[in-house]
Protein backbone atom coordinates (compact mmCIF):
# COMPACT_ATOMS: atom_id res chain seq x y z
CA UNK A 1 0.00 0.00 0.00
CA UNK A 2 2.82 2.38 0.96
CA UNK A 3 4.81 1.58 -2.21
CA UNK A 4 1.91 2.28 -4.44
CA UNK A 5 1.32 5.53 -2.64
CA UNK A 6 5.00 6.49 -2.97
CA UNK A 7 5.02 5.75 -6.72
CA UNK A 8 1.92 7.77 -7.26
CA UNK A 9 3.45 10.59 -5.28
CA UNK A 10 6.65 10.47 -7.36
CA UNK A 11 4.73 10.68 -10.59
CA UNK A 12 2.73 13.57 -9.28
CA UNK A 13 5.96 15.34 -8.24
CA UNK A 14 7.51 14.85 -11.69
CA UNK A 15 4.54 16.37 -13.38
CA UNK A 16 4.59 19.22 -10.91
CA UNK A 17 8.37 19.80 -11.56
CA UNK A 18 7.89 19.90 -15.31
CA UNK A 19 5.01 22.23 -14.95
CA UNK A 20 7.03 24.50 -12.64
CA UNK A 21 10.02 24.54 -15.07
CA UNK A 22 7.72 25.38 -17.93
CA UNK A 23 6.25 28.16 -15.86
CA UNK A 24 9.72 29.42 -14.61
CA UNK A 25 11.50 29.35 -17.94
CA UNK A 26 9.03 29.94 -20.75
CA UNK A 27 11.67 31.26 -23.21
CA UNK A 28 13.95 28.25 -22.75
CA UNK A 29 11.15 25.89 -23.36
CA UNK A 30 10.65 27.14 -26.90
CA UNK A 31 14.36 27.88 -27.68
CA UNK A 32 14.89 24.58 -29.55
CA UNK A 33 12.96 25.86 -32.41
CA UNK A 34 16.18 27.33 -33.73
CA UNK A 35 18.23 24.01 -33.50
CA UNK A 36 18.67 21.38 -36.14
CA UNK A 37 19.61 17.71 -36.25
CA UNK A 38 20.34 15.67 -33.09
CA UNK A 39 20.60 18.83 -31.16
CA UNK A 40 16.91 19.15 -31.37
CA UNK A 41 16.37 16.19 -28.99
CA UNK A 42 19.39 16.79 -26.70
CA UNK A 43 18.83 18.99 -23.68
CA UNK A 44 20.35 22.34 -23.62
CA UNK A 45 22.51 22.65 -20.54
CA UNK A 46 21.41 26.22 -20.06
CA UNK A 47 17.90 25.04 -19.70
CA UNK A 48 18.54 21.66 -18.22
CA UNK A 49 20.50 22.68 -15.15
CA UNK A 50 18.02 25.27 -13.88
CA UNK A 51 15.23 22.87 -14.50
CA UNK A 52 17.13 20.17 -12.64
CA UNK A 53 17.79 22.50 -9.76
CA UNK A 54 14.16 23.52 -9.68
CA UNK A 55 13.12 19.95 -9.78
CA UNK A 56 15.45 18.99 -6.95
CA UNK A 57 14.28 21.86 -4.88
CA UNK A 58 10.70 20.99 -5.53
CA UNK A 59 11.43 17.39 -4.78
CA UNK A 60 13.06 18.23 -1.48
CA UNK A 61 10.20 20.51 -0.50
CA UNK A 62 7.64 17.92 -1.36
CA UNK A 63 9.64 15.15 0.31
CA UNK A 64 10.08 17.25 3.42
CA UNK A 65 6.56 18.61 3.86
CA UNK A 66 4.15 17.00 1.40
CA UNK A 67 5.05 13.41 1.57
CA UNK A 68 4.79 12.87 5.42
CA UNK A 69 1.37 14.53 5.55
CA UNK A 70 0.22 12.55 2.59
CA UNK A 71 1.71 9.39 4.02
CA UNK A 72 0.08 10.08 7.36
CA UNK A 73 -3.27 10.65 5.68
CA UNK A 74 -2.89 7.45 3.70
CA UNK A 75 -1.83 5.61 6.87
CA UNK A 76 -4.81 6.94 8.78
CA UNK A 77 -7.05 5.99 5.96
CA UNK A 78 -5.49 2.58 5.81
CA UNK A 79 -5.82 2.19 9.58
CA UNK A 80 -9.45 3.28 9.46
CA UNK A 81 -10.17 0.86 6.65
CA UNK A 82 -8.29 -1.84 8.51
CA UNK A 83 -10.21 -1.08 11.67
CA UNK A 84 -13.49 -1.10 9.77
CA UNK A 85 -12.57 -4.36 8.16
CA UNK A 86 -11.64 -5.77 11.56
CA UNK A 87 -14.90 -4.52 13.00
CA UNK A 88 -16.76 -6.02 10.10
CA UNK A 89 -14.92 -9.25 10.63
CA UNK A 90 -15.64 -9.16 14.35
CA UNK A 91 -19.26 -8.36 13.64
CA UNK A 92 -19.39 -11.19 11.18
CA UNK A 93 -17.82 -13.58 13.69
CA UNK A 94 -20.12 -12.28 16.41
CA UNK A 95 -23.08 -12.66 14.10
CA UNK A 96 -22.06 -16.18 13.23
CA UNK A 97 -21.56 -16.98 16.88
CA UNK A 98 -24.93 -15.45 17.80
CA UNK A 99 -26.52 -17.31 14.92
CA UNK A 100 -24.92 -20.51 16.15
CA UNK A 101 -26.19 -19.80 19.65
CA UNK A 102 -29.64 -19.04 18.32
CA UNK A 103 -29.59 -22.22 16.33
CA UNK A 104 -28.40 -24.13 19.36
CA UNK A 105 -31.07 -22.54 21.53
CA UNK A 106 -33.62 -23.23 18.84
CA UNK A 107 -32.52 -26.83 18.72
CA UNK A 108 -32.70 -27.01 22.51
CA UNK A 109 -36.11 -25.38 22.44
CA UNK A 110 -37.24 -27.88 19.84
CA UNK A 111 -35.86 -30.70 21.94
CA UNK A 112 -37.53 -29.33 25.05
CA UNK A 113 -40.79 -28.94 23.20
CA UNK A 114 -40.50 -32.49 21.94
CA UNK A 115 -39.68 -33.67 25.45
CA UNK A 116 -42.61 -31.76 26.89
CA UNK A 117 -44.90 -33.24 24.29
CA UNK A 118 -43.51 -36.69 24.98
CA UNK A 119 -43.88 -36.18 28.74
CA UNK A 120 -47.39 -34.88 28.31
CA UNK A 121 -48.20 -37.83 26.12
CA UNK A 122 -46.68 -40.21 28.65
CA UNK A 123 -48.53 -38.50 31.48
CA UNK A 124 -51.74 -38.69 29.55
CA UNK A 125 -51.19 -42.36 28.83
CA UNK A 126 -50.43 -43.02 32.49
CA UNK A 127 -53.45 -41.04 33.64
CA UNK A 128 -55.63 -42.82 31.15
CA UNK A 129 -54.31 -46.17 32.32
CA UNK A 130 -54.86 -45.20 35.97
CA UNK A 131 -58.36 -43.95 35.29
CA UNK A 132 -59.17 -47.07 33.34
CA UNK A 133 -57.77 -49.32 36.04
CA UNK A 134 -59.60 -47.39 38.75
CA UNK A 135 -62.84 -47.50 36.83
CA UNK A 136 -62.43 -51.21 36.27
CA UNK A 137 -61.66 -51.75 39.95
CA UNK A 138 -64.66 -49.70 41.03
CA UNK A 139 -66.85 -51.56 38.61
CA UNK A 140 -65.56 -54.86 39.94
CA UNK A 141 -66.15 -53.73 43.52
CA UNK A 142 -69.65 -52.57 42.67
CA UNK A 143 -70.38 -55.87 41.01
CA UNK A 144 -68.98 -57.73 44.01
CA UNK A 145 -71.00 -55.62 46.42
CA UNK A 146 -74.13 -56.12 44.38
CA UNK A 147 -73.43 -59.83 44.25
CA UNK A 148 -72.87 -59.92 48.02
CA UNK A 149 -76.02 -57.89 48.62
CA UNK A 150 -78.01 -60.19 46.38
CA UNK A 151 -76.57 -63.21 48.16
CA UNK A 152 -77.37 -61.67 51.53
CA UNK A 153 -80.88 -60.82 50.43
CA UNK A 154 -81.32 -64.33 49.12
CA UNK A 155 -80.13 -65.80 52.39
CA UNK A 156 -82.28 -63.40 54.39
CA UNK A 157 -85.31 -64.21 52.27
CA UNK A 158 -84.62 -67.92 52.58
CA UNK A 159 -84.11 -67.57 56.34
CA UNK A 160 -87.29 -65.53 56.64
CA UNK A 161 -89.19 -68.11 54.64
CA UNK A 162 -87.72 -70.91 56.71
CA UNK A 163 -88.55 -69.00 59.87
CA UNK A 164 -92.08 -68.47 58.69
CA UNK A 165 -92.44 -72.14 57.87
CA UNK A 166 -91.01 -73.07 61.26
CA UNK A 167 -93.29 -70.59 63.05
CA UNK A 168 -96.30 -71.86 61.17
CA UNK A 169 -95.41 -75.45 61.92
CA UNK A 170 -94.91 -74.71 65.60
CA UNK A 171 -98.14 -72.74 65.75
CA UNK A 172 -100.04 -75.63 64.23
CA UNK A 173 -98.53 -78.04 66.72
CA UNK A 174 -99.17 -75.61 69.58
CA UNK A 175 -102.82 -75.29 68.64
CA UNK A 176 -103.12 -79.03 68.41
CA UNK A 177 -101.60 -79.45 71.86
CA UNK A 178 -103.25 -76.47 73.47
CA UNK A 179 -106.83 -77.15 72.62
CA UNK A 180 -106.80 -80.66 71.31
CA UNK A 181 -105.82 -82.50 74.48
CA UNK A 182 -108.04 -83.39 77.41
CA UNK A 183 -106.92 -82.98 81.02
CA UNK A 184 -106.24 -86.68 81.32
CA UNK A 185 -104.17 -86.60 78.16
CA UNK A 186 -102.25 -83.64 79.63
CA UNK A 187 -101.65 -85.59 82.84
CA UNK A 188 -100.51 -88.61 80.89
CA UNK A 189 -98.11 -86.35 79.03
CA UNK A 190 -96.88 -84.87 82.35
CA UNK A 191 -96.29 -88.33 83.77
CA UNK A 192 -94.31 -89.28 80.72
CA UNK A 193 -92.25 -86.12 80.90
CA UNK A 194 -91.56 -86.53 84.65
CA UNK A 195 -90.33 -90.04 84.01
CA UNK A 196 -88.27 -89.07 81.00
CA UNK A 197 -87.08 -85.69 82.26
CA UNK A 198 -83.54 -85.18 83.45
CA UNK A 199 -82.45 -85.10 87.06
CA UNK A 200 -82.56 -82.08 89.40
CA UNK A 201 -78.94 -82.73 90.10
CA UNK A 202 -78.08 -82.68 86.40
CA UNK A 203 -79.70 -79.35 85.67
Amino acid at each position, binding site marked *: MNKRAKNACARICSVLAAASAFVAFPALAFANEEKEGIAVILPDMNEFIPMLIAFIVLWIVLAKFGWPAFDKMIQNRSDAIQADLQKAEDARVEGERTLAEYRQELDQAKMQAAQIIADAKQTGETARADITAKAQQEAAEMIEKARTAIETEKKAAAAQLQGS*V*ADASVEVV*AKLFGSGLTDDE*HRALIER*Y*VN*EAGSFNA*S
Partner: protein
Amino acid sequence: MPANRYHAKAEVDIYAKTLLEQLNAKGGIDAVMEARSQMEQIVAYNRSHIELNRAASDATMAPEKRASLVKGVFSNTSEELSSVLGVMAQRGGLDILPRVLAAYNDLIKNQLGVTVVDVVTRVPLDDHLRDLIKNKAKNELGGDVVLREQIDTNMLGGIIMSAGSRRIDASMNTMLEGVRTTLKKTS
Protein backbone atom coordinates in the same frame (compact mmCIF):
# COMPACT_ATOMS: atom_id res chain seq x y z
CA MET B 1 -66.01 -53.86 102.31
CA PRO B 2 -65.80 -57.54 103.36
CA ALA B 3 -66.91 -56.49 106.80
CA ASN B 4 -69.96 -54.78 105.30
CA ARG B 5 -70.69 -57.83 103.14
CA TYR B 6 -70.42 -60.17 106.11
CA HIS B 7 -72.50 -57.82 108.17
CA ALA B 8 -75.20 -57.73 105.48
CA LYS B 9 -75.21 -61.53 105.22
CA ALA B 10 -75.52 -61.84 108.97
CA GLU B 11 -78.42 -59.41 108.93
CA VAL B 12 -80.14 -61.40 106.16
CA ASP B 13 -79.64 -64.65 108.06
CA ILE B 14 -81.11 -63.13 111.21
CA TYR B 15 -84.23 -61.99 109.37
CA ALA B 16 -84.71 -65.37 107.72
CA LYS B 17 -84.04 -67.38 110.87
CA THR B 18 -86.30 -65.23 113.02
CA LEU B 19 -89.13 -65.47 110.54
CA LEU B 20 -88.73 -69.23 110.08
CA GLU B 21 -88.59 -70.01 113.78
CA GLN B 22 -91.58 -67.85 114.62
CA LEU B 23 -93.72 -69.23 111.81
CA ASN B 24 -92.69 -72.82 112.43
CA ALA B 25 -93.49 -72.46 116.11
CA LYS B 26 -96.80 -70.88 115.35
CA GLY B 27 -98.19 -72.88 112.44
CA GLY B 28 -95.68 -75.50 111.42
CA ILE B 29 -94.65 -76.16 107.83
CA ASP B 30 -97.90 -74.80 106.44
CA ALA B 31 -97.31 -71.39 107.98
CA VAL B 32 -93.71 -71.49 106.81
CA MET B 33 -94.78 -72.28 103.25
CA GLU B 34 -97.49 -69.66 103.32
CA ALA B 35 -95.00 -66.98 104.36
CA ARG B 36 -92.62 -68.18 101.67
CA SER B 37 -95.32 -67.81 99.06
CA GLN B 38 -96.17 -64.33 100.31
CA MET B 39 -92.53 -63.30 100.24
CA GLU B 40 -92.23 -64.45 96.64
CA GLN B 41 -95.24 -62.35 95.71
CA ILE B 42 -93.76 -59.33 97.47
CA VAL B 43 -90.42 -59.77 95.70
CA ALA B 44 -92.19 -60.05 92.35
CA TYR B 45 -94.27 -56.97 93.17
CA ASN B 46 -91.22 -54.96 94.18
CA ARG B 47 -89.46 -55.79 90.93
CA SER B 48 -92.25 -54.23 88.90
CA HIS B 49 -93.17 -51.43 91.35
CA ILE B 50 -90.10 -49.58 92.47
CA GLU B 51 -92.07 -46.85 94.26
CA LEU B 52 -92.63 -48.93 97.37
CA ASN B 53 -88.95 -49.82 97.54
CA ARG B 54 -88.02 -46.16 97.27
CA ALA B 55 -90.48 -45.17 99.97
CA ALA B 56 -89.23 -47.96 102.26
CA SER B 57 -85.64 -46.77 101.91
CA ASP B 58 -86.33 -43.03 101.84
CA ALA B 59 -83.76 -41.47 104.17
CA THR B 60 -85.82 -38.28 104.53
CA MET B 61 -88.57 -40.27 106.16
CA ALA B 62 -88.32 -41.26 109.80
CA PRO B 63 -87.50 -44.98 110.33
CA GLU B 64 -90.61 -45.52 112.41
CA LYS B 65 -92.71 -43.97 109.71
CA ARG B 66 -91.16 -46.24 107.08
CA ALA B 67 -91.86 -49.25 109.27
CA SER B 68 -95.46 -48.30 109.80
CA LEU B 69 -95.86 -47.63 106.09
CA VAL B 70 -94.59 -51.08 105.11
CA LYS B 71 -96.60 -52.81 107.81
CA GLY B 72 -99.70 -51.05 106.59
CA VAL B 73 -99.07 -52.05 102.98
CA PHE B 74 -98.48 -55.70 103.92
CA SER B 75 -101.07 -55.95 106.69
CA ASN B 76 -102.83 -58.83 104.93
CA THR B 77 -99.76 -61.06 105.25
CA SER B 78 -98.93 -63.03 108.36
CA GLU B 79 -98.15 -60.98 111.44
CA GLU B 80 -94.62 -62.31 111.68
CA LEU B 81 -93.82 -61.50 108.06
CA SER B 82 -95.25 -57.98 108.23
CA SER B 83 -93.30 -57.41 111.43
CA VAL B 84 -90.04 -58.51 109.83
CA LEU B 85 -90.75 -56.37 106.75
CA GLY B 86 -91.36 -53.41 109.06
CA VAL B 87 -88.03 -53.94 110.78
CA MET B 88 -86.32 -54.14 107.36
CA ALA B 89 -87.86 -50.83 106.31
CA GLN B 90 -86.92 -49.28 109.63
CA ARG B 91 -83.29 -50.39 109.25
CA GLY B 92 -82.79 -49.39 105.63
CA GLY B 93 -85.29 -50.78 103.13
CA LEU B 94 -86.65 -53.82 101.37
CA ASP B 95 -83.74 -54.23 98.97
CA ILE B 96 -82.46 -57.26 100.84
CA LEU B 97 -85.79 -59.11 100.71
CA PRO B 98 -84.75 -61.38 97.77
CA ARG B 99 -81.67 -62.46 99.74
CA VAL B 100 -83.82 -62.99 102.83
CA LEU B 101 -86.09 -65.20 100.75
CA ALA B 102 -83.09 -67.21 99.47
CA ALA B 103 -81.79 -67.61 103.03
CA TYR B 104 -85.29 -68.57 104.15
CA ASN B 105 -85.41 -71.30 101.49
CA ASP B 106 -82.00 -72.59 102.60
CA LEU B 107 -83.21 -72.72 106.20
CA ILE B 108 -86.33 -74.63 105.15
CA LYS B 109 -84.09 -77.17 103.47
CA ASN B 110 -81.32 -77.31 106.07
CA GLN B 111 -83.14 -76.64 109.33
CA LEU B 112 -86.52 -78.23 108.70
CA GLY B 113 -85.27 -80.88 106.26
CA VAL B 114 -87.96 -79.94 103.77
CA THR B 115 -87.40 -79.64 100.02
CA VAL B 116 -89.86 -77.31 98.36
CA VAL B 117 -90.56 -78.12 94.74
CA ASP B 118 -92.48 -75.57 92.70
CA VAL B 119 -94.53 -77.23 90.00
CA VAL B 120 -96.16 -75.38 87.13
CA THR B 121 -98.61 -77.20 84.86
CA ARG B 122 -101.52 -76.42 82.54
CA VAL B 123 -103.94 -78.75 84.31
CA PRO B 124 -104.19 -79.55 88.04
CA LEU B 125 -102.15 -82.50 89.28
CA ASP B 126 -103.78 -85.62 90.59
CA ASP B 127 -102.47 -87.63 93.53
CA HIS B 128 -100.66 -90.04 91.30
CA LEU B 129 -98.66 -87.27 89.70
CA ARG B 130 -97.97 -85.65 93.07
CA ASP B 131 -96.54 -88.90 94.42
CA LEU B 132 -94.55 -89.39 91.27
CA ILE B 133 -93.02 -85.93 91.48
CA LYS B 134 -92.40 -86.15 95.22
CA ASN B 135 -90.63 -89.47 94.86
CA LYS B 136 -88.47 -88.16 92.07
CA ALA B 137 -87.54 -85.06 94.08
CA LYS B 138 -86.96 -87.06 97.26
CA ASN B 139 -84.70 -89.52 95.47
CA GLU B 140 -82.68 -86.82 93.84
CA LEU B 141 -82.68 -84.03 96.45
CA GLY B 142 -83.44 -85.80 99.71
CA GLY B 143 -85.55 -84.62 102.67
CA ASP B 144 -89.30 -84.31 102.91
CA VAL B 145 -90.74 -82.89 99.72
CA VAL B 146 -93.42 -80.26 99.68
CA LEU B 147 -95.02 -79.41 96.37
CA ARG B 148 -96.19 -75.92 95.57
CA GLU B 149 -98.52 -76.23 92.62
CA GLN B 150 -99.29 -73.48 90.19
CA ILE B 151 -101.64 -73.62 87.22
CA ASP B 152 -100.62 -71.67 84.11
CA THR B 153 -103.16 -71.83 81.34
CA ASN B 154 -100.73 -70.16 78.97
CA MET B 155 -98.69 -73.34 79.01
CA LEU B 156 -99.41 -75.67 76.14
CA GLY B 157 -98.65 -78.68 78.26
CA GLY B 158 -95.95 -80.51 80.12
CA ILE B 159 -94.45 -79.50 83.45
CA ILE B 160 -91.87 -77.16 84.98
CA MET B 161 -90.31 -78.25 88.30
CA SER B 162 -88.07 -75.98 90.37
CA ALA B 163 -86.28 -76.64 93.64
CA GLY B 164 -84.24 -73.66 94.67
CA SER B 165 -81.76 -72.94 91.93
CA ARG B 166 -82.41 -76.30 90.25
CA ARG B 167 -84.98 -76.47 87.51
CA ILE B 168 -86.40 -79.03 85.12
CA ASP B 169 -88.30 -77.52 82.22
CA ALA B 170 -90.31 -80.20 80.49
CA SER B 171 -92.97 -77.86 79.15
CA MET B 172 -94.37 -78.04 75.64
CA ASN B 173 -93.58 -74.37 75.15
CA THR B 174 -89.87 -74.94 75.69
CA MET B 175 -89.85 -78.04 73.55
CA LEU B 176 -91.62 -76.33 70.68
CA GLU B 177 -89.31 -73.36 70.99
CA GLY B 178 -86.40 -75.76 70.66
CA VAL B 179 -88.04 -77.30 67.62
CA ARG B 180 -88.62 -73.84 66.15
CA THR B 181 -84.98 -72.90 66.69
CA THR B 182 -83.77 -76.14 65.19
CA LEU B 183 -86.00 -75.73 62.14
CA LYS B 184 -84.77 -72.18 61.56
CA LYS B 185 -81.16 -73.21 61.89
CA THR B 186 -81.19 -76.36 59.82
CA SER B 187 -83.89 -75.88 57.24
